[in-house]
């Protein structure tokens, strides 16, 4: 490995304008950005770990509740949402590929598609949530079995339905919040893509948003069977 002799970086360096002053090279800048993002994803995994552990233990405590209550979740909507997110992961990955091959339209339109699919996910989520609100299937204090029964929903669930719906709302809600954040980040990406900020040498920001989005998809891959497909 060649030792750099000490010299001032201010002289005669090919310094692209998107290279930050505290970095020596694009390679250093890009790999630093990605490393930072993977570390952040590591902590996201641990953040959700608490929610999954809560699910595991509650399910162990109240197996009958989970079995009965999940019937009140519409697995078809859940499956549809899974398709939306998986497709959005594809389009996001294609957007990153677009940056790698220096294609402005590929970047732009794939991000648009990802946003649209994320939006579709949130719309389905909204439909599901509004059904729950309408039927009184709410977390904790707010669970109203009487209202549900009144609406013809078989809510005579044994056990602790309030706990089940609490877990349902907290897990899908936290996940949904992350989807919204991702969509916000992607809107900003569109602005930057239009500005011409990204090319094959400099697109770590785009890649990082992609990594974030894939983690959000990953969480859903586990959420779907655990919440909707309990048998």
């Amino acid at each position, binding site marked *: 490995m060649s030792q750099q002799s000490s010299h001032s970086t201010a002289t005669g360096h090919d310094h692209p304008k998107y290279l930050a002053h505290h970095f*020596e090279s694009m*390679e250093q800048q890009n790999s630093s950005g*990605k490393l930072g993002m993977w570390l952040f994803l590591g902590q996201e995994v641990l953040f959700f*770990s608490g929610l*999954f552990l809560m699910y595991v*233990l509650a399910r162990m405590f109240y197996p009958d509740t989970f079995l009965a209550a999940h019937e009140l979740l519409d697995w078809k909507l859940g*499956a549809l949402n899974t398709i939306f997110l998986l497709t959005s992961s594809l389009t996001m990955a*294609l957007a990153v590929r677009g940056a790698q091959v220096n294609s402005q339209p590929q970047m732009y339109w794939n991000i648009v598609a990802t946003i649209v699919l994320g939006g579709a996910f949130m719309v389905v989520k909204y439909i599901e949530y509004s059904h729950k609100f309408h039927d009184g299937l709410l977390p904790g204090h707010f669970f109203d079995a009487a209202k549900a029964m009144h609406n013809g929903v078989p809510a005579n669930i044994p056990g*602790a339905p309030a706990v089940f719906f609490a877990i349902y709302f907290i897990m899908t809600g936290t996940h949904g919040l992350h989807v919204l954040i991702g969509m916000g980040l992607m809107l900003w990406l569109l602005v930057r893509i239009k500005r011409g900020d990204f090319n094959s040498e400099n697109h770590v920001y785009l890649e990082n948003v992609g990594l974030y989005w894939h983690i959000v998809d990953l969480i859903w891959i586990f959420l779907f069977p655990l919440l909707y*497909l309990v048998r």
Partner: protein
Amino acid sequence: MFQKLRSFVLKSASPAQSGAHASQPHVLPLKTYFAVFGALLVLTVITVVVSVVGLPQPTAIIVAMVVAAVKASLVVLWFMHLKYDDRFYSLIFIISLFFLALFFIFTTMDVLSRGQVNEEESFFSQDGIQLRKDFMKK
């Protein structure tokens, strides 16, 4: 041994002095992406079908989680590019999964092993089960 471990893990985590080797992005062919996507869709269908078919527990949950894990691996390895990237990122991801497992295992171990000394404290004791059932009736 310390040095070998270090160099394996830090294979491409090069600091400034690695010189000017500009890393060309590793571009995967389009069909790889679509193949992965296809596999993901198929696995989703399998997940749903298996659930509808109605395997007994605990087989059902194990199958569901294994399928989910396979789907997750596809996303992580290809869409997130971990298969082709600096090995250190994989290490970070695996380490976080390791600590997640630690958290799960120790906590669940506690819950399941209560009652060795005092019968009533046990998760499986008649009292415990009855308590949960009583709670249910509220």
